[in-house]
């Protein structure tokens, strides 16, 4: 691995990749095949992993004035990958996904190597995989691994009719014995969901990925049916922009810094002349991690895709680019940040 220091464990290999194939057959969704630019084999990855693509800045005055980075789930073979496969929903004009949709075969891209945060639980009795729309992407590698190792798994994909991402992959896995159900309207899904949640074998783990509303629906239904939170895993790639949040105050380096609504903690620290390493500025790369202390009565809202559930519960660190504190009544500051 590249030269690294210290305990962070956050250093990731930078991969130079080249686009070798494109598939635009599903409206609004582009699937890409990426290979190592030098022809080297790519690092194997844990099912459910994603890569972070570096997106260059657009021309001056465009919707993308600075470079950014987007996380995409890897959907292809994970144990001995000859290429990396991702699928990208075209979202906001001028954003990272629009840039991906403009790539051509032969274009070079740079990615931070695979990161796992949504891994199968080897001891699970069964994996119940629920995806909506483009949210099926991390579940495809789960299902492939389950088929390879003979693990019990069942996948349900909710999508608009005619817009099923990875339908061919799922059909192939179904032909090899996987249980796959496709649903194209929300009412049928809700009915099926209640049924599924009540009939799973003891020790089943639920994996859920899709838009925020979908995940709220699933996690709330799971909680109602008595599923412990430790058996419910969520991933929220490809979702809409974060809300601006309420203003709050942080105590940092012996001063108080105001974070207005619509401004991130990272931006507020930068405006105050306090440098924090960063890259993606949207909670996926892990670069901007800061240590924090939440005061008595305070609350931290993480909103990132980097920390795992346990780290979020512990509340000792936050991703400055997306995490916010809720305003507290009384405390001198709503959050302490230790740089």
């Amino acid at each position, binding site marked *: *691995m590249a*030269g*690294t*220091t210290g*305990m962070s*464990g*956050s*250093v*990731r*290999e930078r991969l130079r990749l080249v686009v070798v194939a494109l598939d635009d057959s599903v409206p609004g969704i582009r699937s890409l095949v990426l290979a190592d630019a030098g022809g080297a084999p790519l*690092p*194997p*990855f*844990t*099912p459910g*992993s994603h890569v972070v693509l570096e997106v260059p800045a657009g021309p001056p005055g465009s919707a993308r004035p600075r470079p950014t980075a987007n996380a995409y789930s890897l959907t292809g073979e*994970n*144990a*001995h990958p*000859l290429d990396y496969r991702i699928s990208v929903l075209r979202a906001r004009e001028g954003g990272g996904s629009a840039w991906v949709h403009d790539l051509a075969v032969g274009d070079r891209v740079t990615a931070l*190597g*695979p*990161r*796992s945060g949504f*891994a*199968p*639980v*080897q*001891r699970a009795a069964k994996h119940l995989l629920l995806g909506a729309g483009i949210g099926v992407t991390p579940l495809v590698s789960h299902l492939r*691994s389950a088929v*390879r*190792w003979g693990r019990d798994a069942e996948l349900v994909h909710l999508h608009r009719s005619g817009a099923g991402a990875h339908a061919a992959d799922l059909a192939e896995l179904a032909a090899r014995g996987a249980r796959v159900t496709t649903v194209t309207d929300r009412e049928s899904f809700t009915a099926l969901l209640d049924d599924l949640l009540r009939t799973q074998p003891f020790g089943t783990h639920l994996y859920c990925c899709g838009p925020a509303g979908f995940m709220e629906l699933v996690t709330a239904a799971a909680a109602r049916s008595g599923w412990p939170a*430790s058996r419910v895993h969520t991933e929220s790639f490809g979702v809409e922009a974060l809300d601006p949040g309420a203003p709050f105050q942080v105590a940092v380096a012996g001063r108080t810094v105001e974070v207005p609504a619509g401004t991130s903690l990272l931006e507020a620290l930068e405006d105050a002349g306090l440098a924090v390493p960063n890259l993606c500025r949207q909670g996926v790369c892990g670069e901007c991690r800061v240590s924090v202390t939440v005061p008595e009565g305070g609350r931290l809202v993480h909103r990132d895709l980097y920390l*795992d*559930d*346990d*780290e979020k519960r512990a509340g000792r660190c936050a991703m400055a680019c997306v995490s916010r504190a809720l305003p507290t009544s009384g405390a001198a500051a709503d959050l302490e940040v230790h740089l």
Partner: protein
Amino acid sequence: MTALSLPTSTAADLLEGFPFPFSHDSYRYSTNVEPARSPVATPVGQWGASVVTVDSEYHRELAERAVLLERDPSRYGVLPHMEVACWDAMLVLLRELASARPDAFHLDVVDAEGPTYRWRNDLLGIEQTFVVGRRETLPAEPLAWACQQVQEDVVLLDQRSGELYGDAGVVTFAADWSFGFDLGMTFLEIHGPVPRVHAEGVIPRAREFILRLQPGQVYRRTNWTLTVGRRLDVATETYPEWGPDRAMVLHVDDDAFGHLVHLRVEVQHLLRLPESGAVMFLIRTHLLPLADIARVPAWRERTAAVLTELPQDMADYKGIAAYRSRAAAWLRDCTSTTTPAPASPSALAPEESR
């Protein structure tokens, strides 16, 4: 019994590749992890370029492991949910062997479907074509088979609900602990007997670090103790065989003492297995008699200082309380009494110490 037969002389590569563990004149526990695969220069050679290390003890140690496993099957254990992790571990170990010693080990993909690999181990004369996940294509269970070919002990940790469990492994060379007893325990439970590290946060920090380890990252650390005799198996199970040596060694003459007492260093590697998401912990044990430590002045002085300064609770835990003072005195005195021949001219240059 091994402990009582005086080793004749140490093979040159064991001295040259010895991972001398002390960077200061005193030693305390710390979360001492660093990125792996970078060589560390010592006054007489280097260590640490690769994740697995093959040396001149290869055949002897693997034969010893086979005998120990035969006598005590509890040194190999795999909980049922660790099957994928075992295949994962096997592939990584074979790959690391091939990258450490491309002259002796070869791993090739012959068919991406399956996938199917061909493996050649020239040191043991093994040639095997296998399909990942298909037990019948291997002569033994995957982790057991890999451990017939690496000198490292292996523990696989499953991660679930934010906790790490030692759920599989092959450990034949444990330093005063029992793999069979620890199987299935959490990382914190496994470290229960170690003094200081819990209150000082060493083990909680290590746990946080391991929980966050990503595939592709490899870290290492060292740990050390003293062992009487060139004896790899000092597991709890065989205590009656080696325990009495700790008192016995106080009564041998100085020459025998220097040849019997060994600095025992474990180079431990930590990495995340890609397919299963389990963590692989490798323990590679190196033994060097004080008589050889003394051939390198910087090592001799530093080891004497560390043994003298080591707090009593740590010496007690390591099981060296009875003889560490004599070991320190032996190292200090042997300058004035014996002047052993240097291993190589550079061995005597104290300014090159680590």
